[in-house]
């Protein structure tokens, strides 16, 4: 559905300021699940804001299916790249949950049955079905965040970008977000998420891009990025691999970013021994 290519991207907010992005090259294929990690200020948010045109490159370019994003308006790009911001209170304004979710698809020109179906599916996915008529501000903070996710999900964009989707979520909330990521990816949509939750990153994504000071310093599968060999590079930007990876390293199991990979590595070793 959509292939993203970021080529030689440089962004400077003000003349003379530091380069928020300092030459980023990333290609992301259709249906990929990519986690973007790094400290605050490493350029993650600046990067994803180029994908839907909220920011324009100082140098370099972004293409979507080979078309230069610079030739499209933000409104046109919004139909291709849906971006969910971190703080739901920076977007919620409608009187009801349903109206809030309808806002995005309506802006894209969706109407009638198609709109209703998209909204229903999105609410179902985040567990807010049955709350259609609720005032969004009567929901708790964590459910309001899921509402913000639904409001972009319903736009059915080929690319979905999530900024810190698991912040403030409990175990069930994280599970819901993971399910949303998985099903969107199965539908062939590309999912890109910024996250600080390394376990979530290792378990829900098939590719991890690590940023520091406006550059990509690591890019690969969770097994590659969280491998013992990458540890020092991760540390240089204050990131710790998930516990499973640390344990796997300690036991000499190779790279085991998830619990299941530790288990299978141990089973393999048992079989071999």
């Amino acid at each position: 559905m959509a292939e993203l290519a970021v080529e030689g991207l440089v962004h400077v907010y003000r003349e003379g300021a530091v380069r928020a992005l300092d030459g980023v090259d990333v290609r992301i294929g259709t249906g990929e699940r990519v986690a973007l990690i790094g400290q605050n200020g490493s350029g993650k948010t600046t990067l994803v804001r180029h994908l839907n045109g909220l920011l324009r490159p100082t140098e370099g370019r972004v293409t979507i299916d080979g078309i230069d994003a610079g030739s499209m308006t933000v409104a046109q790009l919004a139909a291709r790249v849906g971006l969910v911001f971190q703080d739901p209170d920076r977007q919620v304004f409608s009187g009801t949950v349903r109206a809030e979710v309808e806002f995005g698809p309506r802006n894209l020109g969706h109407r009638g049955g198609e709109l209703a179906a998209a909204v229903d599916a999105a609410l179902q996915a985040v567990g807010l079905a049955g709350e259609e008529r609720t005032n969004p501000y009567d929901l708790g903070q964590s459910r309001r965040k899921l509402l913000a996710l639904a409001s972009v999900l319903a736009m059915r964009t080929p690319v979905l970008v999530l900024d810190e989707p698991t912040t403030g979520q409990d175990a069930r909330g994280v599970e819901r977000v993971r399910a949303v990521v998985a099903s969107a990816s199965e539908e062939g949509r590309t999912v890109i998420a910024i996250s600080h939750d390394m376990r979530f990153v290792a378990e829900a994504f098939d590719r991890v891009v690590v940023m520091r000071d406006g550059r990509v310093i690591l890019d690969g599968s969770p097994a590659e990025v969280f491998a013992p060999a990458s540890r020092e590079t991760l540390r240089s930007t204050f990131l710790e691999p998930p516990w499973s990876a640390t344990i796997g390293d300690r036991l000499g199991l190779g790279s085991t970013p998830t619990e299941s990979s530790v288990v299978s590595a141990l089973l393999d070793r048992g079989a071999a021994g």
Partner: protein
Amino acid sequence: MLVRWVVALAAFLIIAVLGITVVGDFTGDQAGNSWALVAAIALIVAFVAYAAVEYMQTGGFASIGSQFDMRTLVLMPIAIAVNIILGAAVANALKIPIYLDSIGTILVGALAGPIPGALTGFVANILWQYIIPPPFQGTVAAPFAIVAAVIGLMAGLFARAGWLRPRPGSSGQSLLIGGAVAVAIVVLLGLYAYTRFYTETFEFLNPETDNLLFIILGWLIVAIFVGFVLGFFALLFVRRDLTVAYVTVAGVATGVVAALISAPISANLFSGVTGSGTDFLVAAFRQAGSDINTATFQQGLLSDPVDKLVTFFVVYLILAAMARRTKARFPQGERLIEGGEAAADDGGEWRGAPA
């Protein structure tokens, strides 16, 4: 305690008498305006006198300060910022002949009460002129602080009377009656303003006039009025909420009072020039033959009711979108919630906060 009230009353009377003596003429066409301004000024002076006596007695302002619970106090800076940002944006950038600089004031009045509302309006205009740095600084804001205070006061009183409480699912009959009453009140206010302030100089829709400006202005007024009535009934029946009628009357009434108080200030201090879109209306009315005082009244009576009507509706929408529990915790919040709070039946061991 008694001394403060006596001093406040004395101050009110002194200023009122002084104002009448100085301004002199209270019998002319614009007597209502002068009355309103003098009364508003006297009200403020009385409040200041009350506060001064309390300060002399106790070295503080506890009796006034304690009316402001912490939540109201935290809301006030937000309200003031909303006033200033929207007000500056409308005046400097949009150049439309309304102000939209009292949303915060009316919001505080509605949620917290008349006195906090009045104080928010007053303080907002003072800060706007003295403390807020450019580009939001207001060059002509402080003299209108009195107007803002009265707006906040009125909003607080309307909300206290329950006028902003939602009434969803009102019956068609009550909507019709309520709507008719509201339109009647607005038309009466309009007629009052028209006969008092427009008939002498401004030939409303006079077919013999050849001045393009008058024709445009006349049709503009007709358009506003027709649009208002249509929009009003549409909204009333779409939302099926009788409160729409209450909000309309509250907005228009507040607007008329605001116009009465602000016009003399604008005319005498700034000759009707405040740098916003309203200046062009003043110019038009002067071209029609009004003197500067009359022109600012005519402009105010056109701009303010529209402005306050829009503002009251915006505030009503904000209140509707706010979380119920957030509203309920403000001093006047219970009066903004449909049906009020049904207190669950408690056993004896449940208790509230210590006094």
